[in-house]
């Protein structure tokens, strides 16, 4: 930079006036009105997309007054892969591989929702055994998904220990998934018409061994977190989402039930074998982080009981219906939804009668649950914002798609 350029730049700054010119630091004694007149500027902070407690690549813009949040805005799209558009160029049996990668923590649910939509569109009758296998794997997947949430939620509140134990116990579930489907995350197991391979014999002892130890594990997590004097004040009464707000934002799943609304698709619109099963839907009262935490903890207990019922009552028969190799459902429109660990996960397919969908859209529960941060975060502290966002159990792969 030449001296001339420096002078011009300095002149430009001076002409702009107070906007650009740096503020002269003033000592307290020099402020005419005392401490009260010390107006602090609001600071805009980018939380994420590389922040470890945003569970992926979430970017939240926070406007801060000191430690207090004045306004919050979630900015999305860092994990956008165009799954819905890609699905328009994949034949029906190939789309499951894409949807596994949408909600990568609970692949069985996404696959089930998609398969259910295709089955309704093509009017395929699914054998009972296939439905029960799907439900069994989904319930185990619900536990695995909630365990991942629990571990990271503990870390959000500052507890590192539970995460290690939880990941260790989750390993048993991933082994079960690998035995049944062949993969630990990207299952590609539930297909339109049924499941791709029959439930293997060697998986049953694995599942029973897990279920036998499961209640003990859950009690350990309660000992580690629920009763902890550091954990409780971090979650109780923080991040309250009133029932009306939850409904207005279209929230579903544990976030909605934490606010006290008994809405669970397995109960309200039973699909698969859920109408024949005996289970309860845990509910919260106030809708704070504690309620969402307790609802998920109880859901894990019920998911294990459901898994035991499903394993005991697994009917004999075919594991898949007869489905043509190249599926061409008739032209039409269909929507099917399942209760995923995050809420109502729906798949909307528009078919023009060809072998690829004309349009496929995912109703992502985590996106709706996340949208509430603009409303809930203002007024809380940054440290509480981390916990509140953690309690929503977001999966960015599903939000951005």
């Amino acid at each position, binding site marked *: 930079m030449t001296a001339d350029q420096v002078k011009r730049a300095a002149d430009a700054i001076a002409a702009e006036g107070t906007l650009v010119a740096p503020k002269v630091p003033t000592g307290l004694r020099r402020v005419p009105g005392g401490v009260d007149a010390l107006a602090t500027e609001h600071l805009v902070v980018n939380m994420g997309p590389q922040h470890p407690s945003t569970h992926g690549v979430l970017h939240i813009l926070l406007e801060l007054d000191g430690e207090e949040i004045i306004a919050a805005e979630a900015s999305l799209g860092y994990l956008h892969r165009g799954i819905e558009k890609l699905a328009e160029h994949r034949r029906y049996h*190939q789309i499951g591989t894409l949807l596994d990668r949408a909600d990568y923590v609970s692949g069985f649910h996404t696959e089930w929702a998609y398969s259910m939509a295709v089955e309704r569109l093509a009017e395929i009758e699914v054998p009972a055994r296939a439905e029960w296998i799907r439900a069994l794997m989904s319930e185990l997947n619900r536990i695995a998904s909630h365990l991942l949430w629990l571990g990271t939620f503990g870390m959000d509140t500052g507890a590192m220990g539970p995460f290690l134990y939880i990941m260790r116990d989750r390993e048993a579930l991933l082994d079960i998934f690998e035995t049944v489907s062949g993969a630990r995350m990207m299952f590609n197991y539930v297909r339109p018409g049924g499941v791709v391979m029959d439930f293997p014999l060697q998986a049953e002892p694995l599942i029973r061994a897990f279920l036998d130890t499961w209640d003990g594990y859950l009690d350990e997590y309660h000992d580690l977190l629920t009763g902890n004097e550091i954990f409780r004040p971090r979650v109780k009464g923080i991040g309250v989402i009133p029932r009306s707000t939850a409904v207005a934002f279209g929230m579903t799943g544990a976030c909605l039930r934490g606010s006290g609304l008994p809405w669970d698709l397995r109960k309200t619109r039973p699909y698969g074998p859920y109408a024949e099963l005996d289970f309860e839907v845990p509910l919260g009262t106030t809708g704070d982080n504690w309620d969402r935490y307790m609802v998920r903890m109880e859901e894990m207990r019920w998911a294990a009981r459901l898994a035991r019922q499903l394993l005991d009552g697994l009917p004999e028969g075919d594991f898949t219906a007869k489905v043509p190799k190249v599926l061409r459902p008739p032209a039409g429109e269909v929507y099917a939804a399942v209760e995923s660990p995050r809420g109502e996960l729906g798949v909307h397919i528009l078919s023009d009668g060809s072998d690829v969908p004309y349009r496929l859209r995912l109703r992502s529960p985590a996106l709706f649950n996340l949208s509430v941060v603009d409303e809930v975060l203002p007024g809380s502290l940054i440290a509480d914002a981390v916990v509140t966002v953690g309690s929503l159990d977001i999966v960015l792969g599903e939000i951005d798609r």
Partner: protein
Amino acid sequence: MYGLGILKGMRVSWRNLMRGPITVQYPDERLTLPERARWAVIPLMNDDGAPRCTACMNCVRACPDGILDLSFVTREDKTKHIDTFRYEVGACMMCGLCVESCPFDALAMGHDYELATTDTACLTSTLLADVDAASPKRERTAGDAAEKGGDDA
């Protein structure tokens, strides 16, 4: 009593300390994979070492990513000669759709999971090269005969 929750947590930590590790010392010790575990695709051969592949192209069409590349020539007597059957393992997501689509059991998902490499050329592998494809007809009759034999026994 304040602090009781923390003491309970420490008891859990102590109990877990006694439980011992579940990890294994990986390169020296290996866990066995479940039978259905899906890793890189491998071609299957007949007992005489000839490939079971009939170059029917079903797998190539089934692959969602289009990473299988099978080039062959059809001779005058309708038999096929496979020039190359290339497979881009670096782009494979191990979904197993190619193996499912194969009507001749000529492909399988292998159990080799140590696929990391420092050479980009290794990200593409050649499954078959310069071999005669199996005849779909002969294959089928041989399989049927074996099944019948099994039933009789």
